[in-house]
């Protein structure tokens, strides 16, 4: 056995490239269906977990899938916004409380989620360092954002302009990091949380600039009529909220008209949830309410149907690979006829020769299984990426 293994290993080692190609092919054939199965199962668990812990999502009427994906996974689905008035209205009904969410902006490719501190409490996320945001301009980083960007409490992060050429719209806002969250293995790890007011500032609804009343430069003012001052483009706009300039920040318009992408509704109890859903279904409330679990289940069902097709393809490819492998081994044995003959003449039994050849196959299969297992194990780390890239 030891000698058979030794000779088989010597053969494999001598033909490294040939073996590597064969092992890689077998590894892929073993890994892909199993890895995909694992990724889909893990994705299902994680997606359902997140969906199950979110009782109701409310947003503008339209695609329920987009609404859920945006609210749970902060993906760049463009939603028609609802207003803060609708958040306040729902809060006033007394069935529970709403957590507004405003998305659509990024900082260094990570989504900025404008919300309230209730969100962290609702998701039960604790801090690995630092503390909650306390004033305008503060933000909190998800665990992965801090790790990947190598940022810590006290550092700053600047929001990205929505469009490089959008001079009039979205302004970059330099936000101070007050805390880093503990890992949760959810999309929260890859998000930047800030007060919803900061996202309104990023949108341009609110801003801060030099005090025109104190300035003597006449070129800063375009018009001043009845106390309504119209500034020229020369006026300096602040892109960071500091203790010195925070008083200059203000919003234009009524807060109840400000946009919100969606809201998470946390009911007082099951009965409140049922009554509220009834009101949505009867059309008493004009916005859309969806149960995330149902939407995610539908989404996953579609994926499982596609996976079934893939499973069939993998079985066919696996069978074809097996046939090719048998062909390769048969041809190899034919090519090695002289070598096999020599071994038998010198004194090897046919059983021994068969043992050596079987050992070669076994080594290749075990190596392929080992590589496939490693890939299978490693693939677990990429569930979130898989969910983002291939499912959402």
């Amino acid at each position, binding site marked *: 056995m030891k*000698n058979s293994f030794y*000779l088989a290993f010597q*053969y494999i080692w001598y033909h490294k490239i040939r073996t590597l190609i064969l092992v890689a092919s077998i590894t892929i054939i073993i890994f892909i269906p199993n890895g995909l199965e694992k990724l889909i199962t893990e994705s299902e668990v994680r997606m359902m977990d997140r969906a199950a812990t979110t009782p109701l999502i409310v947003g503008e009427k339209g695609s329920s899938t987009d609404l859920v994906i945006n609210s749970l996974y902060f993906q760049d689905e463009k939603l028609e916004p609802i207003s803060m008035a609708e958040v306040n209205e729902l809060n006033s009904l007394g069935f529970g409380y709403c957590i507004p969410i405003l998305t659509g902006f990024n900082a260094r490719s990570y989504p900025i989620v404008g919300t309230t501190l209730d969100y962290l409490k609702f998701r039960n996320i604790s801090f690995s360092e630092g503390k909650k945001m306390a004033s305008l301009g503060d933000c909190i980083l998800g665990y992965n954002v801090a790790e990947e960007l190598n940022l810590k409490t006290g550092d700053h992060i600047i929001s990205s302009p929505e469009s490089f050429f959008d001079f009039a719209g979205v302004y970059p806002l330099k936000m101070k990091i007050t805390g880093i969250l503990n890992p949760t293995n959810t999309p929260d790890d890859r998000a930047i949380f800030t007060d919803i007011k900061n996202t309104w500032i990023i949108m341009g609804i609110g801003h801060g600039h030099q005090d025109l009343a104190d300035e003597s430069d006449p070129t800063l003012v375009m018009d001043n009529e009845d106390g309504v001052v119209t500034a020229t483009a020369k006026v300096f706009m602040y892109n960071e909220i500091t203790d010195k300039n925070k008083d200059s920040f203000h919003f234009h318009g009524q807060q109840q008209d400000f946009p919100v992408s969606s809201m998470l509704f946390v009911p007082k109890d099951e009965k409140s949830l049922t009554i509220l859903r009834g009101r949505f279904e009867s059309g008493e409330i004009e916005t859309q309410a969806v149960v995330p679990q149902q939407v995610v289940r539908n989404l996953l069902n579609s994926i499982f149907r596609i996976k079934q097709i893939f499973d069939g393809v993998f079985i066919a490819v696996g069978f074809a690979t097996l046939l090719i492998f048998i062909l390769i081994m048969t041809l190899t044995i034919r090519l090695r006829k002289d070598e096999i003959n020599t*071994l038998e*003449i*010198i*004194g*090897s039994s046919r059983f021994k020769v068969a043992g050596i050849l079987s050992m070669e196959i076994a080594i290749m299969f075990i190596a392929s299984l080992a590589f496939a297992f490693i890939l299978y194990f490693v693939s677990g780390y990429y569930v979130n990426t898989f969910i983002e890239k291939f499912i959402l």
Partner: protein
Amino acid sequence: MLRIQNLYFKYPKSDFQLQIDDLLFNKGETHALIGPSGSGKTTLLNLIAGISTPHEGRIKYKDIEVSKLSEAERRGFRISRIGFVFQDFKLINYLNVFENIMLPYRINARLKIDLQVRSRIKLLSEYAGIDKYLSKYPKNLSQGERQRVAICRALVTQPELILADEPTGNLDPKNKKKILDLLFKYCKEEGTTLITVTHDHELLPDFDEVIDFSKLLSEDEINLRLNKTNTES
């Protein structure tokens, strides 16, 4: 010590026949088998080694009747008593020189690898002048060096009988002499019997005995086989 009596062998689906009435190979002597192609020289080596078995007659080595042994016993007989040298060396390309020499120990459970075997390989390689190449692979060696590796592999089990099938057939004159001298020297020192198939008549004076297969066959049969060989070539 090796005696062949009343031997008759025929390959299936072939008109080839080998008939030997009586042939004796003495211990420690060197024997050359000559004769036209197809006269049965290699077949005789295979019969002696137990690779093929005769239809009639007997091959007796000391008190062992080779032709009556089972396949496993013949394999055991081969590995413990016989060393093989081939014209085309039959080295294993994925094993280095050291491992090629050790091959009989790797493929037969009766032979155990120990320190003695390893030191014997080193001694043999020094003896054959290939000790510098122990970690090299056959593809990196010259023809003469390859044949010396093959001889070391044949000698490593300390065989009582060496069967060499045209061991110098693929070598240049200088290497032919070297290889044969190596075999003769070893056989003389260890008292080993050497049976060599050769077409090289220049080398015949060095052998203790020359067995001409054309004399073992009838004149008609020789002509038949010569015609067949000419047609094939």
